[in-house]
């Protein structure tokens, strides 16, 4: 079973998967891939990883990690 990143037991605020899937890269408007373990949204087109903190995706290029 895939990790949906939203355990009912886990009461820390987590972003909901459907919401994450509705986002695009703010730089390229390209698709994003959700890395549940790292809590990041990856934009291959912009070579950026956007962090998810306290369940809130931080979709700012200035806060994103550059991919190698």
């Amino acid at each position, binding site marked *: 079973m895939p990790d949906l990143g939203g355990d009912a037991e886990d009461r820390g*605020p987590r972003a*909901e998967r459907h*919401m994450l899937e*509705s*986002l*695009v*890269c*703010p*730089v390229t*408007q390209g698709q994003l891939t959700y890395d549940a373990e790292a809590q990041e949204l990856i934009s291959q087109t912009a070579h950026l990883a*956007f962090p998810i*903190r*306290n*369940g*809130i*995706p*931080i*979709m*700012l*290029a*200035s*806060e994103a990690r550059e991919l190698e």
Partner: protein
Amino acid sequence: MSPDNRTTHFGFQTVDEDQKAGMVHGVFSSVASKYDIMNDLMSMGIHRVWKDAMMDWLAPRPGQHLLDVAGGTGDVSFRFLGRAGETARATVCDMTAPMLEEGRKRAEAEKMAERLDWVCGDAMALPFPSSTFDVYTISFGIRNVTRIPDALTEAYRVLKPGGRLMVLEFSQIPNDMMQKAYDLYSFNVIPKMGEVVTGDRDSYQYLVESIRKFPDQDTFAAMIREAGFEQVKYRNLSLGIAALHSGWKI
């Protein structure tokens, strides 16, 4: 400041464009936890009346999906969902994550959690696909954006055809005498009040300066038309201390 950099306003200071976002971020991170109470004090509760006037004109309907940009603590989204009913959704988008965290803690946010999304993003580069939303609101947020035309272009992009933009922002009082009286109040009282309530005078000094710098009603309406919106209209609130601007993506 290098000569080839484009500059913008930060209150009455002129700053490099690439500095403004960080400075605005600083202001709102600093005041996040006391933002709501400060708004009440500053406007003597009138910002609530203005937000209700916004909803009256907007007339939220079932099934609509709202994007509330600079929606911070959720004020506009809660009102929208309250009026539109169970089938509506709202996405709150703000550049300052601490503001969103404050909003999510509020009682209304818990009641409406199923219908609310919280996303940290920039009004000039929204992380949403084109033609997604029925309604775009920005309430006391657009004057903090570095390049206002870029934000309006993004608003147009993410709205569905038939979608509506509504902006609530401080504006200019058409009567000079009244504007002078209001300036006296805002420049003398608000920064002091901010200092007492939040311990942060500078942030509120920025707020009053940025209000004064924002274009008047007709100039801003022209900017909205320039971004592609049609049937652009505005309504003054409290004599023009604030104004509502409405436009449609046809």
